[in-house]
C-alpha cells in the first residue's frame, strides 16, 4: 500500500519555547525521525524554537523549494490551532496544502505527561503515525460553488420579519413563509412590551406592513415548507401553499365574508382560546396579508354542503370553494429558520388548576385579556366576563426550571410577570402578588422596571407556589382561589386568597421542531431547541452550511434578542451572498461506481441527504456539495467502494501502523 514512488518528506519539530521542549527531547525526536523514518522518505528533520513564527514558516517554505519536499509533517501543537498556518505556508511554497500533516505533541504529549523519556517515546510514535499518514495524503482542491442570491426565511414572527427586511433592504430577494394566515407571530398577540411598555401592535404593525409590501419580499402565508433539497448556495425548496378558498387577486380584504359567516368557533390560536372567530376569518384587524382564510374543518358548507353565505355576499366573487393546495418550488442560496416557540401547556401543572379552576389564566390569555383589541376590549376581568378582580396572584416559572417539565429558564417570564403586575395595578387597582424563585431581570432597563413595580406596591413573595386551590379552610378563603406557598424569606407557609391567578408560563420548542430540524438537516438540543454552531461565538449559524437560525427557535429569548438574532442571521446570509461563491472543504466521500454493488447499505446513513441511488444504473452516488465529510458511509460500505478524501482508509490504516511503530526500518537495514 505504501507509495510506489518515494516521497520526499520533511519533519519539523517545534520546541514551542519550553512548552514542548520542556517535556520532550526535541533534538532526539528530530534525529530519530531522520534516522528511523528515512526509509519512508524522510530526507530532512529539523527542530526549531517556534515553528509557527514567520521564521519557522520560512524554514519550511525554503526546504520545500530547495529540497523539493513533496510532504511535510510538523510536530507541534493541535491541528485545530495551526493546521491552517502550515497549510498556507506550504501553499506559498507551491506545495498542495493538503500534503501537510500536524503531529500534536503539545496538547497530547508535553502538556499531559511528566516523564520526559516516556513523553519522547510517545512523540516518536505520534510522528511516525503522521509520516505514514502523510504519504497516503493526496492533493486536494477546495470545491467552489456559486451562491443563489435568493433567501428563504421560515417563520413570520418578529425575528423572521426582521431577518427578511434586512436582506430585502440590501437588495436581495426573500421568500418569507408563514404557517398561519398572517405574519406577526406571538408579538402580535401581546398588549404591551417590557420594559418600556410600548404598545406591541404600534411597533410591530409598521414592520409587518413593510414586509408585506416590500418589492423584494415574496410573502407566502398559510404555507408550509414541505421539502428541502440541495446544499449551501443551491437549495431547492418545495412549499405547500394551503388552500385559502379565497382568490387573493380578487379579494379586497373588505371583511364582508367574515361578517356574514354564521359559524362562530373558539379561536385557539390568536385569541389563545379566550375569544371567538368565524369559520372564514382574518386572525386580527392588522393582519398582513389582509386576505381571509377559510377554516375547512369548521365551515358549514364543507360540513353540511350548504351555506355559502360568504360567497353570496362577497362583492368581488373572491370566494372559491374549489381551491386546492398548491405546491411551489423555489431556488434559494440560504435559509433562515425563525420558527419561534410554543407556549408551555399550563394544564400539565395540575396543582395550579389551569383548566379546572375558571379564574386561573395563562400569560397568553392575559395578554389577550389586557389587549384593547382583545375579547374584552382590554378589560381585565374574571372568566365570567364581567367581574374586575380585587386581588391577583402572578406565578413565575410555570413549567420552567422544573425537572418535571422543562429544566431550563424560559428567560422572559420574570419580566412578563412584572409587566402583568404593572398592568393589573394600573387598570384595576387590585392588590397584586408576584411569586418567584429568583428574580431574573438581566439586560438594559429591566431591573429598573422591577424597581418601578416594587414602587407601585406589588407584593413579592419569594417561593415557588405549591398549589392553587378552591378548597377553603377558613371563612376568609371562601369563594376565592387560595395560593398556598412557602414564603421562604419569612420562613413560613402562607395561604393567600385572590380572585385571579395568572401563570407566567414558560416557552418551549415548537411541537414539530424535531421534524422541522430533520427537514432542514439541522439538529435539536436535548431540550428540543435548534442547535447553533457555537453557543457563544456562532449563535445564529448551524452545523449545516447555509442554514441559519434566529429568535426563539434557538432558545427562549425576549423581543430585543429575537430582533438582534434576526438581523445577525441576515448579516451572515448577506456575507454569503456577496461572496458569490462558497468554498467547500474537500473532505468528502465519493463512490467508485464500478465497485459499487448497489446494495444500498449506505443509502439510509446520511443525515444530509447527500447519498442518492441511481435506479437506472443500480449504483449509489454522493453529492459532494451536500456531503459534510463525516465518513460514516465510507466505514459502512461492504464493497469498499466509497472513498473519503482527507480521511481515507489508506491514511487511517497507515497512521495506525505508524503509531504502533510497525513502519520502522527493520534493524540492521
Amino acid at each position, binding site marked *: 500500500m505504501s507509495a510506489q514512488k518515494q516521497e520526499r518528506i520533511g519533519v519539523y519539530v517545534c520546541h514551542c519555547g519550553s512548552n514542548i521542549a520542556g517535556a520532550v527531547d526535541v533534538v532526539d525526536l528530530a534525529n530519530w525521525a531522520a534516522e528511523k523514518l528515512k526509509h519512508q522518505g524522510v530526507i530532512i528533520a529539523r527542530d526549531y524554537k517556534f515553528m509557527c513564527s514567520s521564521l519557522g514558516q520560512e524554514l519550511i517554505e525554503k526546504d520545500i523549494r530547495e529540497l523539493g519536499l513533496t510532504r511535510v509533517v510538523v510536530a507541534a501543537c493541535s491541528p485545530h490551532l495551526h493546521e491552517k498556518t502550515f497549510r498556507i505556508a506550504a501553499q506559498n511554497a507551491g506545495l498542495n496544502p493538503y500534503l501537510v500533516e500536524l503531529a500534536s505533541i503539545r496538547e497530547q504529549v508535553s502538556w499531559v505527561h511528566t516523564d520526559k523519556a516516556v513523553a519522547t517515546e510517545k512523540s516518536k510514535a505520534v510522528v511516525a503515525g503522521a509520516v505514514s499518514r502523510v504519504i497516503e495524503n493526496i492533493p486536494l482542491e477546495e470545491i467552489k460553488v456559486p451562491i443563489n442570491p435568493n433567501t428563504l426565511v421560515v417563520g413570520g414572527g418578529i425575528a423572521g420579519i426582521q431577518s427578511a427586511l434586512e436582506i430585502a433592504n440590501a437588495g436581495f430577494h426573500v421568500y418569507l413563509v408563514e404557517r398561519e394566515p398572517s405574519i406577526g407571530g406571538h408579538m402580535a398577540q401581546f398588549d404591551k412590551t417590557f420594559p418600556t411598555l410600548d404598545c406591541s401592535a404600534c411597533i410591530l404593525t409598521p414592520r409587518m406592513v413593510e414586509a408585506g409590501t416590500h418589492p423584494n419580499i415574496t410573502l407566502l402565508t398559510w404555507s408550509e415548507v414541505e421539502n428541502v433539497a440541495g446544499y449551501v448556495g443551491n437549495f431547492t425548496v418545495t412549499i405547500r401553499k394551503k388552500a385559502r378558498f379565497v382568490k387573493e387577486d380578487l379579494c379586497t380584504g373588505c371583511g364582508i365574508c367574515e361578517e356574514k359567516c354564521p359559524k362562530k368557533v*373558539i379561536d385557539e390560536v390568536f385569541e389563545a*382560546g*379566550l*375569544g*371567538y372567530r368565524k369559520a372564514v376569518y382574518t386572525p386580527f384587524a392588522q393582519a398582513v396579508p389582509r386576505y381571509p382564510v377559510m377554516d375547512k374543518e369548521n365551515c358549514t358548507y364543507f360540513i353540511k354542503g350548504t351555506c355559502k353565505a360568504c360567497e353570496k355576499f362577497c362583492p368581488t366573487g373572491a370566494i372559491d370553494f374549489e381551491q386546492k393546495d398548491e405546491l411551489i418550488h423555489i431556488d434559494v442560496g440560504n435559509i433562515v429558520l425563525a420558527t419561534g416557540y410554543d407556549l408551555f*401547556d399550563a*394544564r*400539565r401543572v*395540575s*396543582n395550579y388548576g*389551569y*383548566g*379546572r379552576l*375558571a379564574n386561573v389564566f*395563562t400569560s397568553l390569555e392575559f395578554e389577550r385579556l389586557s389587549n384593547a383589541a382583545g*375579547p*374584552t376590549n382590554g378589560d381585565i376581568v*374574571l*372568566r*365570567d*366576563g*364581567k367581574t374586575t378582580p380585587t386581588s391577583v396572584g402572578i406565578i413565575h416559572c410555570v413549567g420552567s426550571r422544573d425537572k418535571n417539565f422543562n429544566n431550563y429558564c424560559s428567560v422572559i417570564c420574570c419580566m412578563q410577570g412584572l409587566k402583568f403586575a404593572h398592568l393589573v395595578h394600573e387598570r384595576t387597582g387590585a392588590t397584586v402578588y408576584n411569586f418567584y424563585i429568583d428574580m431574573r431581570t438581566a439586560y438594559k432597563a429591566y431591573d429598573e422596571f422591577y424597581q418601578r413595580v416594587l414602587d407601585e406596591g406589588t407584593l413579592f413573595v419569594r417561593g415557588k407556589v405549591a*398549589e392553587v*386551590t*378552591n*378548597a*377553603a*379552610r377558613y371563612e376568609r378563603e371562601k369563594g376565592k382561589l387560595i395560593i398556598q406557598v412557602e414564603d421562604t424569606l419569612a420562613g413560613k407557609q402562607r395561604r393567600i386568597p385572590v380572585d385571579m391567578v395568572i401563570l407566567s408560563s414558560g416557552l418551549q420548542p415548537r411541537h414539530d421542531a424535531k421534524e422541522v430540524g430533520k427537514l432542514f438537516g439541522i439538529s435539536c438540543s436535548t431540550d428540543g431547541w435548534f442547535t447553533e454552531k457555537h453557543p457563544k461565538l456562532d449563535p445564529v449559524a448551524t452545523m449545516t452550511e447555509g442554514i441559519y437560525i434566529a429568535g426563539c427557535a434557538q432558545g427562549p429569548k425576549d423581543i430585543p434578542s429575537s430582533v438582534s438574532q434576526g438581523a445577525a442571521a441576515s448579516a451572515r446570509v448577506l456575507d454569503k451572498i456577496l461572496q458569490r461563491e462558497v468554498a467547500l472543504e474537500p473532505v468528502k466521500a465519493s463512490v467508485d461506481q464500478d465497485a459499487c454493488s448497489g446494495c444500498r447499505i449506505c443509502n439510509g446513513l446520511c443525515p444530509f441527504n447527500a447519498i442518492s441511488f441511481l435506479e437506472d444504473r443500480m449504483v449509489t452516488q454522493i453529492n459532494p456539495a451536500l456531503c459534510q465529510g463525516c465518513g460514516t458511509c465510507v466505514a459502512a460500505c461492504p464493497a469498499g467502494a466509497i472513498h473519503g478524501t482527507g480521511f481515507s482508509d489508506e491514511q487511517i490504516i497507515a497512521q495506525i501502523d505508524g503509531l504502533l511503530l510497525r513502519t520502522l526500518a527493520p534493524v540492521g537495514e
Partner: protein
Amino acid sequence: MNRYLLYPGCSMDSSAKAYMESLNSILEPLDLTFEEIDDWNCCGATEYLGINLIPAYSLIARNLALAANQKNRHPETGGTRTVVAPCSACYLNLAKADYYMQERPSLGVKVNEALQAGGLQYKPGTLDVRHLIDILVYDVGLEAIRSKVVRPLHGLRVAPYMGCMLPRPDYQHRWSDHEHPTELDDLLRALGVDVVDYPLTTSCCGGHMTQIGPETAFELIRRLVADADERGAVLMATVCPMCQMNIDAYQNEMNHYFGTDYHMPVLFFTQLMGLAFGREPEELGIGVELVSARNALATIGVEVPVTQEPAGPRKKSEGLPMPRRWTRHEGKETVK
C-alpha cells in the same frame, strides 16, 4: 378469567374487613381471580422505614420474593406477574421497594443478601405492583363495570377520596395525574354515583399522626370532612384502609376537638360497587363503620329511581370559554 396475586395487607382482616368482604363480592361478576400470596408479612407501613432502612426494605421485599415464586404456580392460566394491593400504603411500599432496588442497585444487593438468609431472593422489576382500582379501571375497564350495574346509585352524592399514597410518588406513571386523578371519579360515575367535585381528593388523612400527634391529624381530617360537607357530599368513598380508619374512627374525636358536628360516613369504593352490582348492604360490610352510612344510603333507598336527567336545551355559554381539561393519558381511551 383474569388471575392476579393478592397482597391483602394487615388491615384487611381487621379494621378494613368491610373492604375485604366487598372486594370478594365483586370478583366473580368481574371475572377476576385473586390468589393470596402465601404467608405474606406486614409491609411495615410508614413505621419501619424511619427506623432501619435495610431491614425495612427487606421486610417488604420478602413479600415480593414470595410473590415472584408464586407467579407461575398455575401455568395453565398463563401465570401472572401482577401483584394487587388494595391498601394504598402497602401498594406504595411494595412499588417503592421494587423501584428503589433498581434506582440504587446497592440497596438491591443488600436486600437480596438479607433475603438470602431466609432462602429467598428477588430481582427487582420481576413483578408489577398495582393497586386494586388500577386493575379495575385499566384492566377490567369502565365499560365492563358499567355493564354489571343493576342498581345504579343515582342521586347518591359522593366525594371521591383517593388519598395521598396512591397517586404519588407514582414512579411507574400509572395514574392520570398526581394531584387530581380521575380514576375514582370515573369508576364511581360508572356506578351511577353523583360525583362531587372534590379538590382535596389526594390530600392526606393524617396517616399515623392520629396515633402520635392527634391535633395535627384532627386538622387534616377536619379539612377533608368539612370540604366534602361544604360541597354537598353525603358520604366519602375511599380506596385505602388507613384513610377509612382515620376519617371514620377519629371523626367523633375530631368533632369534639373542634366543637364541630360533622357526620360524614366514609365507605370503601368496593362497597359502593357491590351495592350497584345488586348485593345487599350486609354482604358488603356496610354497617360496621362508626360514622353510620345508613342515612346517606337512605337518600337513594332500595328502589332507586332512574333519574336520568333530561337533556334540556344547551345552556348558552356565558363569559369567556374555558380551556380543555388535561390528563396524562390524553388520547388513551379507557377513561370515559
